[in-house]
Protein backbone atom coordinates (compact mmCIF):
# COMPACT_ATOMS: atom_id res chain seq x y z
CA UNK A 1 0.00 0.00 0.00
CA UNK A 2 1.34 3.42 -0.90
CA UNK A 3 2.31 5.85 1.82
CA UNK A 4 -0.44 8.28 0.84
CA UNK A 5 -3.06 5.57 0.96
CA UNK A 6 -1.86 4.44 4.41
CA UNK A 7 -2.25 7.96 5.72
CA UNK A 8 -5.69 8.39 4.16
CA UNK A 9 -6.88 5.20 5.84
CA UNK A 10 -5.49 6.37 9.18
CA UNK A 11 -7.00 9.85 8.94
CA UNK A 12 -10.40 8.46 8.00
CA UNK A 13 -10.26 5.99 10.85
CA UNK A 14 -9.31 8.66 13.38
CA UNK A 15 -12.10 10.94 12.15
CA UNK A 16 -14.61 8.11 12.39
CA UNK A 17 -13.63 7.38 15.96
CA UNK A 18 -13.66 11.10 16.79
CA UNK A 19 -17.12 11.60 15.33
CA UNK A 20 -18.44 8.73 17.41
CA UNK A 21 -17.40 10.41 20.62
CA UNK A 22 -20.01 13.12 21.26
CA UNK A 23 -18.11 14.47 24.24
CA UNK A 24 -14.95 14.99 22.21
CA UNK A 25 -16.87 16.61 19.37
CA UNK A 26 -18.62 18.94 21.76
CA UNK A 27 -15.56 20.08 23.62
CA UNK A 28 -13.27 20.50 20.64
CA UNK A 29 -15.65 21.98 18.08
CA UNK A 30 -18.74 23.25 19.84
CA UNK A 31 -17.04 24.73 22.90
CA UNK A 32 -15.20 27.51 21.04
CA UNK A 33 -18.34 28.23 19.03
CA UNK A 34 -20.33 28.46 22.23
CA UNK A 35 -17.72 30.78 23.71
CA UNK A 36 -17.98 32.97 20.66
CA UNK A 37 -21.75 33.23 20.99
CA UNK A 38 -21.53 33.91 24.72
CA UNK A 39 -18.74 36.46 24.54
CA UNK A 40 -20.57 38.35 21.85
CA UNK A 41 -23.82 38.26 23.76
CA UNK A 42 -22.06 39.56 26.85
CA UNK A 43 -19.82 42.21 25.36
CA UNK A 44 -21.25 43.16 21.98
CA UNK A 45 -22.90 46.28 23.39
CA UNK A 46 -19.69 47.40 25.05
CA UNK A 47 -17.50 50.11 23.78
CA UNK A 48 -15.14 49.26 20.98
CA UNK A 49 -11.67 48.07 21.78
CA UNK A 50 -8.79 50.34 21.25
CA UNK A 51 -6.87 49.13 18.24
CA UNK A 52 -3.08 49.04 17.91
CA UNK A 53 -2.99 52.60 16.64
CA UNK A 54 -5.62 53.96 19.00
CA UNK A 55 -8.49 53.30 16.57
CA UNK A 56 -11.90 52.03 17.60
CA UNK A 57 -12.16 48.33 16.92
CA UNK A 58 -15.51 46.46 17.23
CA UNK A 59 -15.27 43.64 19.79
CA UNK A 60 -16.92 41.09 17.48
CA UNK A 61 -13.96 41.21 15.17
CA UNK A 62 -11.67 40.66 18.07
CA UNK A 63 -13.59 37.60 19.30
CA UNK A 64 -13.98 35.87 15.96
CA UNK A 65 -10.25 36.09 15.39
CA UNK A 66 -9.18 34.94 18.83
CA UNK A 67 -11.73 32.21 19.31
CA UNK A 68 -11.21 30.73 15.87
CA UNK A 69 -7.54 30.39 16.76
CA UNK A 70 -8.62 28.85 20.04
CA UNK A 71 -10.84 26.39 18.14
CA UNK A 72 -7.84 25.27 16.09
CA UNK A 73 -5.79 24.87 19.26
CA UNK A 74 -8.44 22.79 21.01
CA UNK A 75 -8.77 20.53 17.95
CA UNK A 76 -5.04 19.90 17.91
CA UNK A 77 -3.29 20.51 21.22
CA UNK A 78 -6.11 19.80 23.67
CA UNK A 79 -7.59 17.01 21.60
CA UNK A 80 -4.34 15.10 21.11
CA UNK A 81 -3.15 15.64 24.69
CA UNK A 82 -6.42 14.05 25.81
CA UNK A 83 -6.90 11.29 23.30
CA UNK A 84 -3.41 9.90 22.87
CA UNK A 85 -2.86 8.96 26.55
CA UNK A 86 -6.24 7.23 26.57
CA UNK A 87 -5.32 5.21 23.50
CA UNK A 88 -1.99 4.38 25.03
CA UNK A 89 -3.45 3.30 28.38
CA UNK A 90 -6.11 1.23 26.63
CA UNK A 91 -3.43 -0.67 24.72
CA UNK A 92 -4.66 0.64 21.38
CA UNK A 93 -1.31 2.16 20.47
CA UNK A 94 0.39 -1.12 21.32
CA UNK A 95 -2.14 -2.95 19.17
CA UNK A 96 -1.13 -0.75 16.24
CA UNK A 97 2.52 -1.36 17.04
CA UNK A 98 1.77 -5.04 16.48
CA UNK A 99 0.95 -4.39 12.83
CA UNK A 100 3.32 -3.34 10.06
CA UNK A 101 1.85 0.17 10.09
CA UNK A 102 4.82 2.57 10.20
CA UNK A 103 4.91 4.79 13.28
CA UNK A 104 4.87 7.94 11.16
CA UNK A 105 1.66 6.85 9.44
CA UNK A 106 -0.03 6.30 12.77
CA UNK A 107 1.04 9.74 13.98
CA UNK A 108 0.01 11.25 10.64
CA UNK A 109 -3.46 9.83 11.24
CA UNK A 110 -3.73 11.69 14.52
CA UNK A 111 -2.27 14.94 13.22
CA UNK A 112 -4.16 14.81 9.92
CA UNK A 113 -7.53 14.20 11.52
CA UNK A 114 -6.87 16.91 14.11
CA UNK A 115 -6.00 19.32 11.29
CA UNK A 116 -9.29 18.61 9.57
CA UNK A 117 -11.21 19.13 12.81
CA UNK A 118 -9.29 22.37 13.35
CA UNK A 119 -10.20 23.57 9.85
CA UNK A 120 -13.84 22.79 10.54
CA UNK A 121 -13.63 24.73 13.80
CA UNK A 122 -12.11 27.76 12.08
CA UNK A 123 -14.62 27.59 9.22
CA UNK A 124 -17.49 27.41 11.72
CA UNK A 125 -16.36 30.40 13.77
CA UNK A 126 -15.55 32.50 10.71
CA UNK A 127 -18.83 31.50 9.09
CA UNK A 128 -20.68 32.47 12.24
CA UNK A 129 -18.82 35.77 12.25
CA UNK A 130 -19.75 36.55 8.67
CA UNK A 131 -23.35 35.46 9.14
CA UNK A 132 -24.13 37.06 12.49
CA UNK A 133 -21.39 39.35 13.70
CA UNK A 134 -20.88 41.67 10.86
CA UNK A 135 -17.46 40.46 9.95
CA UNK A 136 -15.85 41.00 6.60
CA UNK A 137 -12.92 38.87 5.57
CA UNK A 138 -10.23 40.72 3.71
CA UNK A 139 -9.20 38.30 0.97
CA UNK A 140 -5.80 39.97 0.66
CA UNK A 141 -4.99 38.80 4.19
CA UNK A 142 -6.01 35.19 3.57
CA UNK A 143 -2.64 33.89 2.36
CA UNK A 144 -1.01 34.87 5.65
CA UNK A 145 -3.98 33.48 7.58
CA UNK A 146 -3.70 30.14 5.79
CA UNK A 147 0.05 30.01 6.23
CA UNK A 148 -0.31 30.78 9.92
CA UNK A 149 -3.05 28.19 10.29
CA UNK A 150 -0.92 25.45 8.74
CA UNK A 151 2.08 26.33 10.86
CA UNK A 152 0.06 26.69 14.05
CA UNK A 153 -1.85 23.45 13.56
CA UNK A 154 1.42 21.59 13.07
CA UNK A 155 3.01 23.21 16.12
CA UNK A 156 0.05 22.74 18.43
CA UNK A 157 -0.39 19.15 17.30
CA UNK A 158 3.27 18.52 18.07
CA UNK A 159 2.86 20.18 21.46
CA UNK A 160 -0.24 18.05 22.10
CA UNK A 161 1.76 14.92 21.35
CA UNK A 162 4.56 16.21 23.56
CA UNK A 163 2.23 16.72 26.52
CA UNK A 164 0.63 13.32 25.81
CA UNK A 165 4.11 11.81 25.99
CA UNK A 166 4.86 13.45 29.32
CA UNK A 167 1.54 12.52 30.94
CA UNK A 168 1.76 9.18 32.71
CA UNK A 169 -1.90 8.23 32.99
CA UNK A 170 -4.94 9.06 30.91
CA UNK A 171 -6.93 10.18 33.96
CA UNK A 172 -4.70 13.17 34.46
CA UNK A 173 -4.73 14.17 30.78
CA UNK A 174 -7.80 16.45 30.70
CA UNK A 175 -6.68 18.28 33.84
CA UNK A 176 -3.17 18.83 32.52
CA UNK A 177 -4.31 19.92 29.07
CA UNK A 178 -6.84 22.38 30.45
CA UNK A 179 -4.47 23.67 33.10
CA UNK A 180 -2.18 24.64 30.26
CA UNK A 181 -4.55 25.94 27.65
CA UNK A 182 -7.13 27.91 29.64
CA UNK A 183 -4.73 30.24 31.49
CA UNK A 184 -2.80 30.55 28.26
CA UNK A 185 -5.99 31.66 26.55
CA UNK A 186 -6.36 34.48 29.06
CA UNK A 187 -2.80 35.76 28.89
CA UNK A 188 -2.95 35.49 25.10
CA UNK A 189 -5.93 37.85 24.77
CA UNK A 190 -8.20 35.17 23.42
CA UNK A 191 -11.10 35.49 25.85
CA UNK A 192 -10.72 39.02 27.16
CA UNK A 193 -9.21 41.92 25.27
CA UNK A 194 -6.40 43.36 27.31
CA UNK A 195 -5.45 46.67 25.85
CA UNK A 196 -2.83 47.34 28.48
CA UNK A 197 -1.88 44.05 30.17
CA UNK A 198 0.45 43.89 33.18
CA UNK A 199 4.02 43.26 32.19
CA UNK A 200 4.12 39.65 33.38
CA UNK A 201 0.99 38.85 31.42
CA UNK A 202 2.34 40.43 28.30
CA UNK A 203 5.53 38.49 28.80
CA UNK A 204 3.75 35.16 29.18
CA UNK A 205 1.58 35.88 26.18
CA UNK A 206 4.62 36.72 24.10
CA UNK A 207 6.56 33.71 25.30
CA UNK A 208 3.98 31.15 24.21
CA UNK A 209 2.66 30.44 20.72
CA UNK A 210 -1.07 31.05 21.23
CA UNK A 211 -0.90 34.85 21.22
CA UNK A 212 0.93 35.21 17.90
CA UNK A 213 -1.57 32.79 16.37
CA UNK A 214 -4.61 34.62 17.77
CA UNK A 215 -3.18 38.03 16.83
CA UNK A 216 -2.67 36.96 13.25
CA UNK A 217 -6.29 35.84 13.01
CA UNK A 218 -7.52 38.99 14.76
CA UNK A 219 -5.60 41.04 12.26
CA UNK A 220 -7.47 39.38 9.41
CA UNK A 221 -10.63 41.09 10.60
CA UNK A 222 -9.05 44.30 11.79
CA UNK A 223 -9.71 47.03 9.22
CA UNK A 224 -6.86 49.11 10.61
CA UNK A 225 -4.26 46.50 9.74
CA UNK A 226 -3.21 46.64 6.13
CA UNK A 227 -2.83 43.49 4.05
CA UNK A 228 -0.99 41.21 3.82
CA UNK A 229 -0.74 41.44 7.64
CA UNK A 230 2.45 39.44 7.59
CA UNK A 231 4.45 39.61 10.82
CA UNK A 232 7.49 37.37 10.61
CA UNK A 233 8.27 37.11 14.30
CA UNK A 234 4.83 35.66 15.02
CA UNK A 235 5.39 32.82 12.60
CA UNK A 236 8.85 32.24 13.99
CA UNK A 237 7.53 32.01 17.55
CA UNK A 238 4.85 29.54 16.51
CA UNK A 239 7.32 27.43 14.57
CA UNK A 240 9.89 27.44 17.37
CA UNK A 241 7.36 25.94 19.75
CA UNK A 242 6.54 23.34 17.13
CA UNK A 243 10.18 22.30 17.11
CA UNK A 244 10.13 22.01 20.90
CA UNK A 245 6.99 19.86 20.65
CA UNK A 246 8.48 17.54 18.06
CA UNK A 247 11.68 17.17 20.09
CA UNK A 248 9.84 16.24 23.29
CA UNK A 249 7.50 13.87 21.47
CA UNK A 250 10.39 12.12 19.74
CA UNK A 251 12.21 11.84 23.03
CA UNK A 252 9.35 10.65 25.20
CA UNK A 253 6.56 9.17 23.06
CA UNK A 254 5.60 5.67 24.20
CA UNK A 255 3.40 3.04 22.64
CA UNK A 256 2.85 1.01 25.77
CA UNK A 257 0.92 1.90 28.89
CA UNK A 258 3.11 3.01 31.75
CA UNK A 259 3.41 0.41 34.45
CA UNK A 260 2.11 2.03 37.59
CA UNK A 261 5.02 2.03 40.00
CA UNK A 262 4.76 -0.32 42.92
CA UNK A 263 2.26 -2.57 41.15
CA UNK A 264 1.94 -6.02 42.66
CA UNK A 265 3.91 -8.78 41.02
CA UNK A 266 6.59 -6.43 39.89
CA UNK A 267 9.31 -7.95 41.91
CA UNK A 268 10.79 -11.16 40.77
CA UNK A 269 9.73 -14.18 42.75
CA UNK A 270 6.78 -12.44 44.33
CA UNK A 271 3.41 -14.19 44.25
CA UNK A 272 4.34 -17.61 43.07
CA UNK A 273 1.32 -17.94 40.82
CA UNK A 274 -1.94 -19.72 40.82
CA UNK A 275 -0.48 -23.12 39.99
CA UNK A 276 2.00 -23.09 42.81
CA UNK A 277 1.44 -26.16 44.93
CA UNK A 278 1.32 -26.37 48.68
CA UNK A 279 3.51 -29.16 49.90
CA UNK A 280 3.33 -31.11 53.08
CA UNK A 281 7.01 -30.57 53.70
CA UNK A 282 8.00 -28.17 56.41
Amino acid at each position, binding site marked *: *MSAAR*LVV*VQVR*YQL*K*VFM*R*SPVAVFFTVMFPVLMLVLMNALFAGDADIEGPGGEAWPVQQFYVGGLSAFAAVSATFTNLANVVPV*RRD*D*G*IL*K*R*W*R*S*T*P*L*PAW*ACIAGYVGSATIVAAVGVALTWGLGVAFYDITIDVAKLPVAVLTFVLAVGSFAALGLAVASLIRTAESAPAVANAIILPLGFVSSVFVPTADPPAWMAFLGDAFPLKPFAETFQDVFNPFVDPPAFVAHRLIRIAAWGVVGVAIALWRFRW*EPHRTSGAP*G*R*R*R*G*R*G*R*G*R*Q*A*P*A*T*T*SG
Partner: protein
Amino acid sequence: MSTEVSTAIAVSGLRKEYDGGILAVDGVDLEVAAGEVYALLGHNGAGKSTTVEILEGHRTRTAGSVAVLGLDPAREGRALRDRIGIVLQSSGIEPSLTVREAVEIYGSCYSTRRPVAEAIELAGLADQADQRVGSLSGGQQRRVDFALGIVGRPEVLFLDEPTTGFDPAARRSAWEVVSGLGAGGTTVLLTTHYLEEAEHLADRVGVLAHGRMVAEGTPAELIGSRGGAVVSFALPDGVEPAELDGVVPRDARIAGRQVDIATATPTADLARLTAWAVGRGVELDGLRVHQPTLEDVFLELAGEREVAR
Protein backbone atom coordinates in the same frame (compact mmCIF):
# COMPACT_ATOMS: atom_id res chain seq x y z
CA MET B 1 19.89 -22.77 3.79
CA SER B 2 17.69 -25.69 4.72
CA THR B 3 17.81 -24.80 8.41
CA GLU B 4 16.67 -21.30 7.54
CA VAL B 5 13.63 -22.63 5.79
CA SER B 6 12.65 -25.13 8.44
CA THR B 7 13.32 -23.00 11.52
CA ALA B 8 10.72 -20.33 12.12
CA ILE B 9 11.92 -19.16 15.51
CA ALA B 10 15.45 -19.46 16.85
CA VAL B 11 16.37 -18.10 20.24
CA SER B 12 19.57 -18.65 22.12
CA GLY B 13 20.85 -17.36 25.41
CA LEU B 14 17.98 -14.91 25.70
CA ARG B 15 18.11 -12.71 28.78
CA LYS B 16 15.94 -9.82 29.83
CA GLU B 17 16.61 -7.64 32.81
CA TYR B 18 14.07 -4.92 33.46
CA ASP B 19 14.87 -1.60 35.06
CA GLY B 20 15.21 -2.21 38.75
CA GLY B 21 17.10 -5.44 38.31
CA ILE B 22 14.19 -7.77 37.69
CA LEU B 23 15.57 -10.71 35.77
CA ALA B 24 12.50 -11.83 33.82
CA VAL B 25 14.22 -14.11 31.31
CA ASP B 26 17.40 -15.84 32.34
CA GLY B 27 19.10 -17.66 29.48
CA VAL B 28 16.36 -19.20 27.39
CA ASP B 29 17.08 -21.31 24.30
CA LEU B 30 14.20 -22.07 22.03
CA GLU B 31 13.76 -23.41 18.54
CA VAL B 32 10.44 -23.73 16.78
CA ALA B 33 10.22 -25.40 13.40
CA ALA B 34 8.13 -23.98 10.59
CA GLY B 35 4.59 -25.26 10.86
CA GLU B 36 5.04 -26.33 14.46
CA VAL B 37 2.65 -25.41 17.25
CA TYR B 38 4.66 -24.67 20.38
CA ALA B 39 3.18 -23.92 23.79
CA LEU B 40 5.03 -22.01 26.51
CA LEU B 41 3.83 -22.83 30.00
CA GLY B 42 4.84 -21.31 33.30
CA HIS B 43 3.59 -19.71 36.48
CA ASN B 44 2.53 -16.07 36.64
CA GLY B 45 5.61 -13.97 36.18
CA ALA B 46 7.66 -16.85 34.74
CA GLY B 47 8.67 -14.70 31.79
CA LYS B 48 6.36 -15.99 29.08
CA SER B 49 5.03 -12.63 27.91
CA THR B 50 8.46 -11.08 28.14
CA THR B 51 9.90 -13.80 25.91
CA VAL B 52 7.07 -13.62 23.41
CA GLU B 53 7.10 -9.83 23.26
CA ILE B 54 10.82 -9.80 22.59
CA LEU B 55 10.18 -12.11 19.65
CA GLU B 56 7.45 -9.78 18.42
CA GLY B 57 9.70 -6.74 18.61
CA HIS B 58 7.71 -5.08 21.38
CA ARG B 59 10.52 -5.27 23.90
CA THR B 60 14.25 -5.05 23.73
CA ARG B 61 16.45 -7.84 25.00
CA THR B 62 19.36 -7.55 27.37
CA ALA B 63 21.37 -10.37 25.77
CA GLY B 64 21.09 -13.33 23.47
CA SER B 65 20.26 -13.84 19.84
CA VAL B 66 16.79 -13.96 18.35
CA ALA B 67 15.62 -14.70 14.82
CA VAL B 68 12.03 -14.95 13.71
CA LEU B 69 11.65 -15.96 10.05
CA GLY B 70 15.34 -15.13 9.81
CA LEU B 71 14.75 -11.54 10.92
CA ASP B 72 15.92 -9.79 14.07
CA PRO B 73 12.80 -8.32 15.70
CA ALA B 74 14.83 -5.53 17.31
CA ARG B 75 16.15 -4.26 13.99
CA GLU B 76 13.77 -5.44 11.29
CA GLY B 77 10.56 -5.09 13.23
CA ARG B 78 8.38 -3.66 10.52
CA ALA B 79 9.34 -6.18 7.85
CA LEU B 80 8.79 -8.88 10.43
CA ARG B 81 5.42 -7.60 11.60
CA ASP B 82 4.13 -7.82 8.06
CA ARG B 83 4.68 -11.58 8.20
CA ILE B 84 3.58 -12.38 11.73
CA GLY B 85 0.33 -12.15 13.63
CA ILE B 86 0.19 -10.97 17.21
CA VAL B 87 -2.40 -11.53 19.88
CA LEU B 88 -1.11 -9.72 22.96
CA GLN B 89 -1.97 -10.74 26.49
CA SER B 90 -3.63 -7.37 26.85
CA SER B 91 -4.25 -4.69 24.27
CA GLY B 92 -7.17 -2.60 23.13
CA ILE B 93 -9.33 -1.72 20.18
CA GLU B 94 -11.39 1.44 19.83
CA PRO B 95 -14.70 0.48 21.41
CA SER B 96 -16.70 2.59 18.98
CA LEU B 97 -15.60 0.62 15.91
CA THR B 98 -17.66 -2.33 14.75
CA VAL B 99 -15.97 -5.70 14.49
CA ARG B 100 -15.97 -5.48 10.71
CA GLU B 101 -14.51 -1.97 10.69
CA ALA B 102 -11.78 -2.97 13.11
CA VAL B 103 -10.76 -5.98 11.06
CA GLU B 104 -10.83 -3.89 7.90
CA ILE B 105 -8.79 -1.02 9.29
CA TYR B 106 -6.21 -3.07 11.14
CA GLY B 107 -6.01 -5.51 8.26
CA SER B 108 -5.42 -2.78 5.70
CA CYS B 109 -1.74 -2.34 6.49
CA TYR B 110 -0.65 -5.93 5.78
CA SER B 111 0.69 -6.69 2.33
CA THR B 112 -1.09 -10.05 2.21
CA ARG B 113 -4.39 -10.35 3.93
CA ARG B 114 -7.33 -12.58 4.50
CA PRO B 115 -10.78 -11.43 3.39
CA VAL B 116 -12.40 -9.56 6.27
CA ALA B 117 -15.38 -11.91 6.36
CA GLU B 118 -13.11 -14.93 6.55
CA ALA B 119 -11.12 -13.54 9.49
CA ILE B 120 -14.36 -12.74 11.30
CA GLU B 121 -15.74 -16.18 10.55
CA LEU B 122 -12.59 -17.95 11.77
CA ALA B 123 -12.73 -15.96 15.00
CA GLY B 124 -16.32 -17.09 15.49
CA LEU B 125 -17.74 -13.58 15.28
CA ALA B 126 -19.97 -13.86 12.22
CA ASP B 127 -23.05 -12.97 14.27
CA GLN B 128 -21.38 -9.97 15.90
CA ALA B 129 -19.72 -8.52 12.78
CA ASP B 130 -21.69 -5.30 12.84
CA GLN B 131 -21.72 -4.81 16.58
CA ARG B 132 -19.48 -2.22 18.20
CA VAL B 133 -16.44 -3.73 19.84
CA GLY B 134 -17.30 -1.95 23.09
CA SER B 135 -20.66 -3.70 23.28
CA LEU B 136 -19.16 -7.20 23.11
CA SER B 137 -18.59 -9.49 26.06
CA GLY B 138 -15.07 -10.03 27.35
CA GLY B 139 -14.69 -13.34 25.56
CA GLN B 140 -16.05 -11.91 22.34
CA GLN B 141 -13.61 -9.00 22.52
CA ARG B 142 -10.84 -11.54 22.92
CA ARG B 143 -12.01 -13.12 19.68
CA VAL B 144 -11.67 -9.75 17.96
CA ASP B 145 -8.03 -9.77 19.09
CA PHE B 146 -7.76 -13.17 17.47
CA ALA B 147 -9.36 -11.95 14.24
CA LEU B 148 -6.86 -9.07 14.09
CA GLY B 149 -4.04 -11.54 14.75
CA ILE B 150 -4.85 -13.67 11.72
CA VAL B 151 -6.13 -11.08 9.25
CA GLY B 152 -2.64 -10.59 7.78
CA ARG B 153 -2.19 -14.28 6.87
CA PRO B 154 0.74 -14.62 9.26
CA GLU B 155 3.51 -17.12 8.70
CA VAL B 156 4.13 -17.09 12.43
CA LEU B 157 1.32 -16.47 14.89
CA PHE B 158 2.01 -15.39 18.47
CA LEU B 159 -0.80 -16.02 20.91
CA ASP B 160 -0.28 -14.81 24.48
CA GLU B 161 -2.96 -16.51 26.56
CA PRO B 162 -5.39 -16.39 23.66
CA THR B 163 -8.33 -18.22 25.18
CA THR B 164 -8.44 -16.57 28.59
CA GLY B 165 -12.08 -15.65 29.16
CA PHE B 166 -13.44 -18.08 26.58
CA ASP B 167 -16.31 -20.35 27.46
CA PRO B 168 -15.55 -24.06 26.99
CA ALA B 169 -17.27 -24.26 23.62
CA ALA B 170 -15.48 -21.14 22.34
CA ARG B 171 -12.18 -22.56 23.57
CA ARG B 172 -12.71 -25.79 21.68
CA SER B 173 -13.58 -23.98 18.48
CA ALA B 174 -10.53 -21.75 18.91
CA TRP B 175 -8.41 -24.89 19.26
CA GLU B 176 -9.86 -26.17 16.04
CA VAL B 177 -8.97 -22.96 14.24
CA VAL B 178 -5.43 -22.93 15.62
CA SER B 179 -4.94 -26.59 14.75
CA GLY B 180 -6.24 -25.80 11.28
CA LEU B 181 -3.75 -22.95 10.89
CA GLY B 182 -0.99 -25.22 12.15
CA ALA B 183 -1.98 -27.91 9.68
CA GLY B 184 -1.94 -25.26 6.95
CA GLY B 185 1.73 -24.51 7.70
CA THR B 186 1.41 -21.56 10.08
CA THR B 187 3.89 -21.65 12.92
CA VAL B 188 2.21 -20.96 16.24
CA LEU B 189 3.85 -19.91 19.49
CA LEU B 190 1.31 -19.72 22.25
CA THR B 191 1.37 -19.28 25.98
CA THR B 192 -1.34 -20.65 28.17
CA HIS B 193 -2.30 -21.51 31.70
CA TYR B 194 -4.65 -24.21 30.47
CA LEU B 195 -2.60 -27.37 30.46
CA GLU B 196 -5.35 -29.08 28.59
CA GLU B 197 -4.98 -26.50 25.87
CA ALA B 198 -1.28 -27.19 25.52
CA GLU B 199 -1.88 -30.93 25.57
CA HIS B 200 -4.52 -30.58 22.89
CA LEU B 201 -2.83 -28.10 20.58
CA ALA B 202 0.88 -28.23 20.93
CA ASP B 203 3.33 -30.34 19.03
CA ARG B 204 5.86 -29.34 21.65
CA VAL B 205 5.70 -27.74 25.04
CA GLY B 206 8.26 -25.71 26.98
CA VAL B 207 7.94 -25.01 30.68
CA LEU B 208 9.38 -21.74 31.97
CA ALA B 209 10.01 -21.16 35.64
CA HIS B 210 11.57 -17.95 36.91
CA GLY B 211 12.90 -17.10 33.49
CA ARG B 212 14.49 -20.46 32.76
CA MET B 213 13.35 -23.31 30.58
CA VAL B 214 12.97 -26.21 33.03
CA ALA B 215 11.48 -28.81 30.69
CA GLU B 216 10.75 -29.20 27.03
CA GLY B 217 9.30 -31.87 24.79
CA THR B 218 6.13 -33.22 23.28
CA PRO B 219 3.27 -33.50 25.76
CA ALA B 220 3.67 -37.28 25.64
CA GLU B 221 7.41 -37.01 26.31
CA LEU B 222 6.90 -34.72 29.25
CA ILE B 223 4.28 -36.96 30.75
CA GLY B 224 6.33 -40.06 30.00
CA SER B 225 9.50 -38.56 31.42
CA ARG B 226 7.96 -38.33 34.84
CA GLY B 227 6.75 -41.93 34.64
CA GLY B 228 4.70 -43.51 37.35
CA ALA B 229 1.21 -42.56 38.28
CA VAL B 230 -0.76 -40.14 40.39
CA VAL B 231 -2.79 -41.10 43.43
CA SER B 232 -5.53 -38.60 44.17
CA PHE B 233 -8.13 -38.26 46.88
CA ALA B 234 -10.00 -35.69 48.91
CA LEU B 235 -8.88 -35.08 52.47
CA PRO B 236 -11.76 -36.19 54.72
CA ASP B 237 -13.47 -33.57 56.86
CA GLY B 238 -11.94 -33.28 60.28
CA VAL B 239 -8.55 -34.55 59.19
CA GLU B 240 -5.69 -32.06 59.35
CA PRO B 241 -3.10 -32.16 56.56
CA ALA B 242 -0.45 -32.63 59.25
CA GLU B 243 -1.90 -36.03 60.06
CA LEU B 244 -0.74 -37.22 56.65
CA ASP B 245 2.91 -36.81 57.61
CA GLY B 246 4.57 -40.13 57.12
CA VAL B 247 1.52 -41.52 55.37
CA VAL B 248 2.04 -39.79 52.05
CA PRO B 249 5.40 -38.79 50.56
CA ARG B 250 6.73 -35.41 51.54
CA ASP B 251 6.30 -34.02 48.02
CA ALA B 252 2.59 -34.73 47.84
CA ARG B 253 0.58 -31.72 46.73
CA ILE B 254 -2.22 -30.49 48.92
CA ALA B 255 -4.44 -27.78 47.48
CA GLY B 256 -7.49 -27.12 49.61
CA ARG B 257 -8.85 -30.58 50.40
CA GLN B 258 -7.43 -32.12 47.23
CA VAL B 259 -4.36 -34.32 47.63
CA ASP B 260 -2.28 -35.55 44.68
CA ILE B 261 0.66 -37.88 45.06
CA ALA B 262 2.88 -38.24 42.03
CA THR B 263 4.72 -41.45 42.53
CA ALA B 264 6.78 -44.14 40.89
CA THR B 265 5.46 -46.69 43.41
CA PRO B 266 1.71 -46.29 43.36
CA THR B 267 1.00 -49.72 44.80
CA ALA B 268 3.07 -49.23 47.94
CA ASP B 269 1.83 -45.67 48.44
CA LEU B 270 -1.74 -46.75 48.01
CA ALA B 271 -1.31 -49.61 50.49
CA ARG B 272 0.14 -47.27 53.12
CA LEU B 273 -2.58 -44.72 52.55
CA THR B 274 -5.51 -47.12 52.67
CA ALA B 275 -4.12 -48.87 55.73
CA TRP B 276 -3.94 -45.50 57.49
CA ALA B 277 -7.46 -44.54 56.40
CA VAL B 278 -8.94 -47.85 57.56
CA GLY B 279 -7.12 -47.52 60.87
CA ARG B 280 -8.34 -43.94 61.30
CA GLY B 281 -11.84 -44.99 60.29
CA VAL B 282 -12.26 -42.46 57.47
CA GLU B 283 -13.38 -42.87 53.89
CA LEU B 284 -11.23 -41.28 51.16
CA ASP B 285 -13.59 -39.62 48.71
CA GLY B 286 -12.61 -39.61 45.06
CA LEU B 287 -9.71 -41.99 45.62
CA ARG B 288 -8.20 -43.00 42.31
CA VAL B 289 -4.95 -43.86 40.61
CA HIS B 290 -4.39 -42.31 37.22
CA GLN B 291 -1.85 -41.49 34.53
CA PRO B 292 -0.17 -38.18 35.15
CA THR B 293 -1.56 -35.34 33.03
CA LEU B 294 0.45 -32.45 31.76
CA GLU B 295 -0.90 -30.52 34.70
CA ASP B 296 0.62 -33.01 37.12
CA VAL B 297 3.95 -32.71 35.38
CA PHE B 298 3.72 -28.95 35.45
CA LEU B 299 2.86 -28.79 39.12
CA GLU B 300 5.66 -31.14 39.95
CA LEU B 301 8.15 -29.03 37.98
CA ALA B 302 6.96 -25.89 39.68
CA GLY B 303 7.29 -27.67 43.01
CA GLU B 304 10.86 -28.71 42.32
CA ARG B 305 11.79 -25.15 41.55
CA GLU B 306 10.14 -24.03 44.71
CA VAL B 307 12.18 -26.47 46.80
CA ALA B 308 15.36 -25.67 44.90
CA ARG B 309 15.14 -22.04 45.92
